[in-house]
């Protein structure tokens, strides 16, 4: 045990004033930063969330999503009881059926006729038993994970270069570096706390340089000294050119190369084959900018290259990863303070899943399934017979196999592939066709759960218990502070119960996560002796009490040598057979996907305040206010050519599918490209599932889909009626052609549109409001402009306010939504509801920028008008940006925008 782990994991952090409930140390369930959280449950049921100042990932910081976790733990929409074919059944019936159907499929069609599709949101212990069951006992490697969609190329790149999937550095390196290259990552929104750490480090050490490589001028651009607005998939060429430049400018670390690596000459030769003209052509960057970046890199001894999905989600993702690693190996900038290639993961436990072998092409404990010695180690450790001997199906291939009938029984845990996988409509069709689908989930209805024959209720964050590993190899505990609701059970329990029923009682007899963790830790140390990177053997005999007290620690944590620098490879020691690192000769050719029919490149990604398919973040009205509907960000010049106006609806489409989204015109988006966020599903929008358009094109090495370079066309959508509504209750019934639903503090809001006309607006309004009983109707009609508004009242309360127009609706939405809280004592005052903006003396906060403290853009502008000079002053005046800091870039953007306007 490390020294830190002696302090209590559970402590009473009694507040100074109001009595605070006992708090539990746990870890955030969102991105891969893995922030520590102090969570407490008040006797009344409300939940308090604060950052854990002692957690080395965040030192007390939280982002907007983490800060709002307390608003996402309600039981609305939860799956609370096992179901078979939509009917509630006892657990035993459901588990018996799952075991029986899997066993039958295996007996009739062999082990490869079944599959698990799991998730980076599972805890390590859940993941461990799922992998153990499939690879060790069922005897197939058909277990893959949604980490395939975000991390597989990094894993593959690491393994090619290092011999194992090792992240060499630590978060601290970002703060120690002289140059941080952020490539293919919108750190400001997707890893906000790391971004905050970087921001603070740069403020403390202004000589630090930051280079952003991204087709879009994202919010991360605000920290960048240099932004390279690269063409999609131009990165391999850019980094090949960098390697050639390093060699040409005598910045090679020849000692390191000679002593610790192989393959340099071939890699350099491949890199040198690219002329500068070719690099300019492939990246779309001016030669001067490329040269500036190369000089910055060559001259900064302490360089960290941080990257995520923009690199990984590519048909050449693995090559891109290796092109980056090549440059770090060539300069010896790896595993040293302030230097190294750094992959940051998108999920809370992508790393933990990789550690236990959650990918179809890995075994367990970072061992290789193709390696007979490794198979022998694991087989003996598990006591398994007939373990898998070859890689299983990777995600895209796995669902293809489901679709063509090769998979007879499929178990999906904690993920939503109907929304998140490429060619998502085909995934949906595959699930519909599959003879037996089991889904373990916390939600009763998702686009995936609705296709399940058996639904198993899982515990949610705050209820479940185990460990996660963050992007810097730091293992932290997720601890329960809420009681399990209904009959929901942890995922490890689901798996073990089915395993026992399939005849593997002995191997799956665990009393709880501590026992599973202990076994996992023991396996990492089993016959390791320094031969494998992953070793937490020091925990091989951890007791339950110690597990419960466990403090965050970084691996390796080898038996008998618990302390020391946790970085890897500063002095070589790679995990290839000859222990030498490998340069990879990279194919830098950029795929050209655009055509006359589909001339625009689609990029997909996250927004600041939503997470994955929004099953949790959409519960929070604060998080829902930042981006309320699917949008298509595009350059104003492209929009002009296509006849698309700001705020109108557009159709984004290709041969795979169609999405309807709001046009957001911005010169942050390069010409010829569009961006659509990945979050919206059929649960909260009509036609918002962007992954339906992503073709099942994968990286040949990693199997990761290419979600950032998709050929589409965008067209203006003829809309008869645009609409916006706020509603006290979730709208139901017959929805208009387009709709997107968001939570408000007093109910819901809906953006909607009808392509053919909504008909009588009052009838439409009543139907959407689901108004039962006596309602009072208020109408506004400006026939000449086509503007119609309807408000419905019941018992002095607004139950629905609707705005219809032939043009996009321009009103103060936040203000209208607030009216859901008003009690209209004098009914004659209530017509103001459909004014769509506040009267004088009732300022409209505007679009919410700071979701923690609910501060809007109009308030920020007013404070700037009032003399606040900068973002710090805004923070003092309004509190905006002072909690999680995730919005500070946006506040700065507002200030910059005004400065620009003033200068003009």
């Amino acid at each position, binding site marked *: 045990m490390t020294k830190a782990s002696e302090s209590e994991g559970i402590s009473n952090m009694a507040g100074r004033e109001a009595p605070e409930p006992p708090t539990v140390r746990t870890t955030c369930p969102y991105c891969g930063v893995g922030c520590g959280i102090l969570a407490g449950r008040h006797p009344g049921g409300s939940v308090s969330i604060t950052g854990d100042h002692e957690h080395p990932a965040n030192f007390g910081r939280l982002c907007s999503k983490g800060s709002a976790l307390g608003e996402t733990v309600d039981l609305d929409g939860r799956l609370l009881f096992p179901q078979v074919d939509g009917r509630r059944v006892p657990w035993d019936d459901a588990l018996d059926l799952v075991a029986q159907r899997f066993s039958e499929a295996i007996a009739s069609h062999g082990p490869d006729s079944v599959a698990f599709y799991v998730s980076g949101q599972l805890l390590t212990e859940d993941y461990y038993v799922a992998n153990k069951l499939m690879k060790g006992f069922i005897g197939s490697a058909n277990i893959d994970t949604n980490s395939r969609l975000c991390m597989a190329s990094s894993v593959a790149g690491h393994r090619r270069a290092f011999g194992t999937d090792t992240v060499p550095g630590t978060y601290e390196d970002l703060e120690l570096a002289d140059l941080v290259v952020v490539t293919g990552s919108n750190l400001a929104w997707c890893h906000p706390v790391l971004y905050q750490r970087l921001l603070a480090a740069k403020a403390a050490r202004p000589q630090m340089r930051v280079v952003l490589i991204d087709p*879009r001028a*994202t919010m991360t651009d605000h920290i960048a000294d240099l932004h390279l607005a690269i063409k999609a998939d131009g990165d391999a060429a850019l980094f090949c050119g960098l390697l050639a430049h390093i060699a040409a400018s005598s910045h090679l670390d020849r000692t390191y190369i000679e002593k610790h690596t192989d393959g340099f000459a071939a890699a350099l030769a491949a890199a040198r084959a690219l002329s500068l003209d070719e690099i300019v052509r492939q990246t779309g960057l001016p030669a001067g900018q490329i040269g500036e970046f190369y000089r910055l890199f060559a001259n900064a001894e302490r360089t960290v290259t941080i990257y995520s999905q923009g690199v990984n989600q590519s048909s050449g993702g693995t090559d891109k990863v290796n092109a980056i690693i090549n440059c770090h190996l060539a300069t010896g900038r790896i595993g040293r303070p302030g230097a190294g290639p750094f992959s940051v993961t998108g999920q809370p436990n992508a790393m933990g899943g990789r550690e236990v072998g959650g990918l179809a092409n890995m075994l367990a404990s970072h061992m290789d399934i193709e390696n007979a010695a490794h198979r022998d180690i694991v087989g003996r450790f598990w006591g398994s017979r007939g373990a898998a001997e070859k890689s299983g199906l990777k995600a895209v291939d796995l669902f293809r196999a489901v679709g063509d009938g090769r998979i007879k029984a499929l178990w999906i845990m904690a993920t939503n592939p109907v929304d998140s996988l490429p060619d998502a409509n085909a995934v949906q069709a595959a699930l519909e066709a599959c003879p037996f689908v089991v889904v373990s989930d916390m939600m009763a209805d998702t686009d995936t759960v609705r296709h399940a024959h058996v639904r198993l209720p899982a515990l949610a964050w705050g209820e479940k218990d185990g460990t996660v590993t963050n992007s810097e190899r730091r293992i932290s505990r997720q601890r329960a502070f809420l009681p399990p609701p209904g009959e929901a059970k942890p995922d490890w329990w689901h798996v073990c119960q089915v395993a026992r029923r399939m005849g593997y009682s002995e191997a799956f007899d665990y009393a709880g996560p501590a026992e599973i963790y202990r076994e996992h830790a023991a396996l990492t140390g089993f016959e390791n002796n320094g031969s494998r990177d992953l070793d937490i053997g020091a925990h091989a005999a951890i007791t339950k009490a110690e597990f419960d007290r466990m403090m965050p620690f970084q691996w390796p944590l080898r038996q008998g040598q618990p302390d020391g620098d946790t970085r890897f490879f500063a002095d070589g020691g790679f995990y290839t057979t000859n222990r030498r690192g490998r340069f990879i000769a990279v194919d830098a050719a950029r795929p050209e996907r655009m055509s006359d029919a589909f001339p625009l490149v689609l990029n997909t990604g996250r*927004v*600041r305040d939503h997470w994955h398919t929004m099953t949790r973040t959409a519960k929070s009205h604060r998080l829902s*206010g*930042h*981006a*309320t*509907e699917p949008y298509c*960000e595009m350059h104003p010049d492209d929009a002009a050519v296509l006849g698309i106006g*700001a*705020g109108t609806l557009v159709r984004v489409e290709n041969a795979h599918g169609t999405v309807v989204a*709001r046009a*957001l*015109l*911005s010169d*942050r988006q390069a010409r010829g490209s569009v961006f659509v*966020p990945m979050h919206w599903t059929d649960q909260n929008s009509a036609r918002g599932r962007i992954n339906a358009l992503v073709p099942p094109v994968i990286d040949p090495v990693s199997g990761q889909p290419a979600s950032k370079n998709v050929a589409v066309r965008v067209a203006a959508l003829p809309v008869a009626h645009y609409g*916006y509504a706020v509603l006290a209750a979730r709208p139901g019934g017959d929805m208009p052609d387009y709709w997107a639903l968001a939570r408000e503090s007093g109910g819901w809001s809906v*953006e909607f549109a009808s392509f053919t006309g909504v008909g009588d607006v009052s009838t439409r309004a009543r139907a959407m409001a689901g108004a039962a009983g006596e309602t*009072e*109707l*208020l*109408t*506004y*009609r*400006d*026939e*000449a*402009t086509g*503007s119609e508004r309807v408000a419905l*009242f019941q018992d002095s309360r607004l139950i629905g306010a609707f705005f219809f127009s032939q043009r*996009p609706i*321009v*009103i*103060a*939405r*936040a203000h209208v939504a607030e009216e859901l809280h008003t009690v209209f004592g004098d*009914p*004659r*005052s*209530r*017509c*103001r509801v459909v*004014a*769509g*903006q*506040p*009267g*004088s*003396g*009732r300022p*409209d906060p*505007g*679009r919410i*920028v700071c979701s923690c403290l609910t501060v*809007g*853009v*109009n308030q920020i502008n007013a404070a700037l008008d009032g003399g606040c000079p900068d973002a710090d002053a805004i923070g003092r005046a309004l509190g905006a940006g002072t909690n999680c800091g995730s919005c500070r870039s*946006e506040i700065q953007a507002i200030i910059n925008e005004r400065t620009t306007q003033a200068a003009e």
Partner: protein
Amino acid sequence: MKQKLVIIGNGMAPGRMLEHLFERAPDAFDVTIFNAEPRVNYDRIMLSPVLSGEKSFEEIVIHGDGWYIERGITLYKGHRIDAIDRDAGTVTSDQGVTECYDKLVIATGSVPFVIPVPGNDLPGVLTYRDLDDVNAMLLAAQARSKAVVIGGGLLGLEAAAGLKERGMDVTVLHLMPTLMERQLDSSAGYLLQRELEGRGINIITKATTRAIVGDGYVEGVKLDDGTVIPASLVVMAAGIRPNAGLGKAAGLDVSRGIVVDGCMRTSDPDIYALGECAEVGGEVYGLVAPLYQMARVAAGHLAGVPTEAFQHAETPTKLKVTGVDLFSLGDFAEGDDREEIVLRDASAGVYKRLVLKEDRIIGVVLYGETADGAWFTDLHKKQADISDLRDTLIFGQAYQGGASADPMAAVAALPEDA
């Protein structure tokens, strides 16, 4: 040497004219006033609150006796002028007083229209014009019996509401399908009818009076369908006519009223006319705002200071019945070249309608919530282009400017950056 100014009539228009005149040319005239009513100048608009009991007469006096004394004005109370001798430059009252004038102002107001039906002269049949009429109604109301008001216009409804307040059982007979049809569209007229009926006033629309019946005293009103509505008091409120007889007798040009030019001069340059008796630009007026404008114009001209000529302007109407908020302005007939914005909240009793033509307001009807009447009047008067205000126009001045909609709201609350 001061000139001699004689004024016939002591209503609100000449009262206001004198205020302007004394301000601009305090020493120019010796002023003599003949008032057919035996009292000082009072606010005739406020007679309805006196009728309903919300105000006393003293509270609606504009110029008390002291005001006249301070300015050296001779006021003959209860003197009706019978004749004007333009050649001699004199006027003579029914009480035999004759005064010379250098300048004469005729401000004889209007007379109520008494519908030509049998029995319209029976005792108990009143009009609604001055304090005497109010006092007579109050006397009749003491019997707490039944009253019929003929005419569902502004005056008639105020009278009806006042009499109801005084405890009478009141029925309003209105010739047209909806109340106040000259000021309200049918929707607002209907809301108003519902409101008044809710207060216990009976309202019969499309009601044509055939006769007023009674034996020596009014007993009821007979409609042309034969129905007889019992009543011990009948108030005629079926409109007014300019009181132009004196001018006509004096040989001045008279059409509907005494014809004046933009400076309020009649066809005799020494004689002015203003108020409800005057006709300017082919229009006669009954509401206070244009009458006050006439007063300002006439005073300026008498004082010899340059003054803008009288300009026609639509004048808003408000119904002075407590708890009924109603405002009407301009023209609200439908037409191909007209656009309208309508806001309705029937259960809250709110109705607003704006009639627009070429992005200008030409008509306004507000019912239930009238606070923005003055603002609409101003926009209407200025013929302001409202296209930039249009989306919030009907909600009034508080919704303009200042709290502008978030510009990003145009793209559906999208993030500023992505």
